[in-house]
């Protein structure tokens, strides 16, 4: 019973990160129909920037997080302007290949700056707390809490503000959004900024728990794709729920079924979904 509770807690921590990353991926897919294969690299770079600021410059963890998030949001905007916007009217294949190029480029840049070794980042909340008899580090609790706050803020932004509604409208019907006067360029730019920011938040939050290394983004992109396909490409609630679901399945499956093939679970699920529903589980929607 205690093992089960511990695994559920682990699932909650991983799920928070999965959901944040998948939300960014689904927003970009929803508004621009681009599968951003380089999304995990923004997650990775966010973690590295915060790591550098905390260890080299001695910055406070939260300040470092904000700087990293701002930097990656700007990176997202730059990538949109320089790479994805010019390709918007090119064949779909081209933007997918460009995203793959960015994946290789960003990962190689990180590898050249910080090297291949695994880096450890201290959390200011390293202490152990006791929660209903379960031992858990303070950082994990903070991670789950901050992630929940961010998701709530995102939902409020998407439903209660004009800018958020413009993103949802574009995802539902690009031509219709254009007709009612929504500027597609501005939507694309804000979507990339938000998506980058969410990825960076996730990266900085998980950095003290897992280690920081150049390849940390590759696997999470793949997991995020699985989540987005399960929850519906472009669906925000789908990405939210899917992240927690996949993390729980992995955490419990890894404990009770097989830990050697834990990473395989996600991809087998994805292949099964596509085998029986070639267009994904849900219709594309915002």
């Amino acid at each position, binding site marked *: 019973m205690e093992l089960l509770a511990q695994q559920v807690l682990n699932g909650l921590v991983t799920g928070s990160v999965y959901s944040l990353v998948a939300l960014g991926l689904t927003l970009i897919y929803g508004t621009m129909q681009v599968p951003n294969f380089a999304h995990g690299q923004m997650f990775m770079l966010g973690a590295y920037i915060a790591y550098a600021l905390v260890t080299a410059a001695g910055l406070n963890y939260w300040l470092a997080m904000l700087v990293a998030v701002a930097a990656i949001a700007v990176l997202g905007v730059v990538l949109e302007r320089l790479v994805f916007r010019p390709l918007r009217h090119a064949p779909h*294949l081209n933007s997918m*290949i460009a995203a*793959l*190029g960015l994946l290789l480029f960003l*990962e190689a840049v990180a590898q050249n700056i910080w090297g291949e070794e695994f880096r450890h980042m201290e959390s200011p909340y390293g202490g152990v707390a006791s929660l209903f008899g379960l031992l858990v580090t303070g950082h994990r609790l903070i991670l789950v809490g901050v992630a929940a706050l961010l998701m709530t803020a995102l939902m409020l932004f998407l439903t209660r503000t004009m800018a958020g509604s413009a993103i949802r409208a574009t995802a539902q019907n690009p031509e219709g959004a254009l007709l009612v006067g929504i500027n597609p360029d501005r939507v694309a730019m804000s979507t990339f900024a938000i998506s980058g920011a969410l990825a960076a938040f996730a990266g900085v939050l998980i950095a003290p728990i897992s280690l920081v290394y150049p390849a940390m983004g590759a696997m999470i992109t793949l997991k995020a794709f699985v989540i987005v396909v399960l929850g519906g490409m472009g669906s925000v609630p789908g990405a939210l729920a899917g992240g927690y679901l996949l993390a729980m399945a992995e955490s419990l499956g890894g404990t009770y079924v097989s830990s050697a093939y834990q990473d395989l679970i996600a*991809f087998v699920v994805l292949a099964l979904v596509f085998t029986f529903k070639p267009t994904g589980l849900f219709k594309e929607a915002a």
Partner: protein
Amino acid sequence: MPPWGRFAPGVVLLVAAALPWLAPNEYYLQILTQGYVFAIAACGLNVIVGLAGQLSLAHSAFFGVGAYTMALLATEAGIPFWIGMPAGVLLCAALGWVIGSICLRSRGSYFAIFTLAVGIIIHLIILKWESLTHGHVGVIGIPGPAAIGPISFDSSMARSYLALLFLALTVLAVSRLVHSPVGRTLMAVRESEPLAAAVGLDVMAAKRLAFTLSAAIAGLAGALFAGFIGFLGPESSNVETTFNMLLYVVVGGLGSLSGPVTGTFIVYGLSQMLAVLQQYQMVIFGLALVLLILFMPKGLAGAVRRLAPALAKPR
């Protein structure tokens, strides 16, 4: 046909046949041979990505299956290269047919993500099925091709020409496909799949044939790779290998016949020759992929076609 175009294939063949003689030493000869092998794999990727417009990210998985089939048949069962290699090709074709039948029902991004997942599953199976594939250790001591009559393939020179022969056969096969009705259908699918289906073309059959051929060619390249190098690790089947091959094809020119070959020689050649490049290799490659897609989406073949129409081969 422009006067130059007629001679182009012959000239290319002559240059290719001369290259092994020009290699200054054994090391370069081996790089050249591997270049031919990767060019074969790139031609296979070009069939599904360049001709049919479907971004398959499972290509290196088929490369791995072909390589491991040949290698394991030889080391575990003592089956010679000349039987193991075709066996690998056939297995890849069969797998390609089955996987293609399933994956190709998804389109666009879904197809890319689906094949990415399939590629990773196959790679993880190769990596984790230690009792069969020896996992991280890989397969060592793989025997190369045995002599056929008086022709022995023990020397690097002979292996180089053998690889070149298979490359020529591959290009010939792809060329036959391009100029066949199925090839026309594939190009129609690439431009607009709904339109191609609307005029009554059997879109699924054409795409499946392209995927099967692409997988079989990858298997051939894999088997040659294993037989020539003599050892084989699981990294041959990982996704990065697919990305490399994609870069070869994009540099040379997506959808062009000669593109994958020239692209492989430029990118693979440069990465092997310039030691300076090693550290920044992926920085440059990644950036090159993005810049090419932005400014030269048809690669070198497209640039040549635009700048010197007389030199280019007509479609």
